[in-house]
């Protein structure tokens, strides 16, 4: 079953076409990376899938339903770019992670014991249970990113959508971060869509790569996609990832 499906989708902003004729589907249990140069429309595509933007033409389907009519948002975990939460925001790790459960609890209802249990499970999954009472701002970049993943996991989602989650991550955390995502994908069967600029590393972790540059340029297994020819075509010859593949 397709968890996400984009059909003949176009998106324009102020008469400028950002995305054109996108046809893409993601199956249940897949781990897919979306790559492309800056300004290629990756984050826009994520916002369209999440219903934050409306397509100019075409359809966005989530679990077979139009994104406008989809009402089971607790099934979707979202990890935005780190900057989405201001660095001075006064909240503990647990308070931040708890917000991930709000969609499932519903408007005006309080979190119950089993909700707090799910929040603690999410914290445990990312290894932050011992830091749950720390202010988020006191955590390192890698730990903060894990807190945001725990927030997305707190609603017990079926799909995880991450928008350039490695931005600002220290190199030594990147391996642990990918390993955590792979674990979630393989052990809990969570479908993952991840926007990434980390072309060099993602190939060893994901099942499929889709390359975007206003249009869907190509998609397939990392082995088929991460070739010098394709990357030259998308990024140009000067890109370090391309140089590394030569």
């Amino acid at each position, binding site marked *: 079953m397709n968890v996400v499906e984009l059909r003949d989708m176009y998106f324009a902003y102020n008469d400028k076409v950002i995305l054109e004729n996108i046809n893409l589907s993601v199956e249940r249990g897949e781990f897919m990376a979306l790559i492309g140069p800056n300004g290629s429309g990756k984050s826009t595509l994520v916002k369209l899938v*999440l219903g934050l933007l409306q397509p100019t033409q075409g359809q966005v389907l989530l679990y077979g339903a139009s994104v406008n009519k989809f009402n089971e948002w*607790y099934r979707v975990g*979202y990890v935005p770019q780190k900057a*989405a939460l201001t660095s001075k925001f006064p909240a*503990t790790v647990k308070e931040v992670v708890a917000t991930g459960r709000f*969609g499932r*609890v519903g408007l005006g209802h309080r979190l119950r014991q089993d909700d707090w249990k799910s929040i603690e499970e999410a914290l445990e999954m990312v290894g932050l249970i011992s830091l749950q009472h720390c202010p988020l701002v006191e955590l390192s970049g890698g730990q903060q990113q894990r807190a945001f993943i725990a927030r997305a996991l707190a609603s017990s989602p079926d799909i995880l959508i991450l928008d350039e989650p490695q931005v600002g991550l220290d190199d030594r955390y990147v391996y642990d971060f990918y390993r955590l995502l792979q674990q979630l994908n393989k052990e809990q069967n969570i479908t993952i869509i991840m926007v990434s600029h980390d072309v060099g590393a993602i190939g060893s972790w994901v099942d499929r790569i889709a390359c975007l540059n206003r249009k869907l340029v190509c998609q397939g297994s990392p082995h088929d996609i991460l070739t010098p020819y394709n990357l030259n075509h998308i990024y140009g010859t000067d890109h370090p990832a391309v140089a590394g593949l030569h």
Partner: protein
Amino acid sequence: MAMLQYDFMVRALIAGLVIGMLCPALGMFLVIRRYSFMADTIAHISLAGVAIGLWMGVASSVTPLLILVVAVLGALTVDHLRTRTSLSADALLALMMSGGLALAIIFFGLAKGGALDITSYLFGSLMTVNSGDLKLILIVAGIVLLFLVLLYKELYFICSDEESARVSGLPVDRLNRIFIFLVALTVAVSLRVVGTLLVGALMVIPVLASLIIGRSFKQVFYLSLVLGVIATLLGLTASYQFGLAAGGCVVLTALFFFALFYALKQLLTYFKRHNALQKDKQ
């Protein structure tokens, strides 16, 4: 306790305490979202309600209701423009604040001989709060607290990360409208107590002071409520004892707490650094 012998003082205390709690409770969400000047803007717009009331010659008991209507309309306009235009928060609030004030000045000019009322609404007149004012304050407090209890977690989510709140399925636009409606109600009933020029201060200063020492959202929220109430109590007592303007005393007391917490935090940071350096040397 001698001041409690007078009915006007008891009314002033109750009104002050309720406003002292309500203002920071809503101010918390405004400060975090960088809309600290929202209350000031709505207060200046509300002043147009006072002016229109004077110009129309309505009874003084009707004026608070008129202020309420103008405040709510102004607040909803701010919210509409906030979501429909690309104006930055400060630019939008500056626009609306000047517009509201300009409207108030024009209507004050058209109404003759209303100078006394202007002063009481500009600077607040806590000691002249009558039982009608107090009833209105208590009704508004009941409404605001009810919504805050019901929607605390949603408002917290929106002010922490509006985009993620939308993705989780929360009706963010509707909740924003409800929130700004509550701010408008609170500002409107606070005008009589602390005045147009100081209502924003009472919404923001206790929160800023609490942010210095609070380590969690919940801590900062409740601490700012406590500070709001303490500042009001101490401010009113000082005002009664020394014959000073009540609104000014309340806000200055809140500012004192801000300065105190700031100084303590700086001292603590200094000693922590000093100790760390000493350890390094050893």
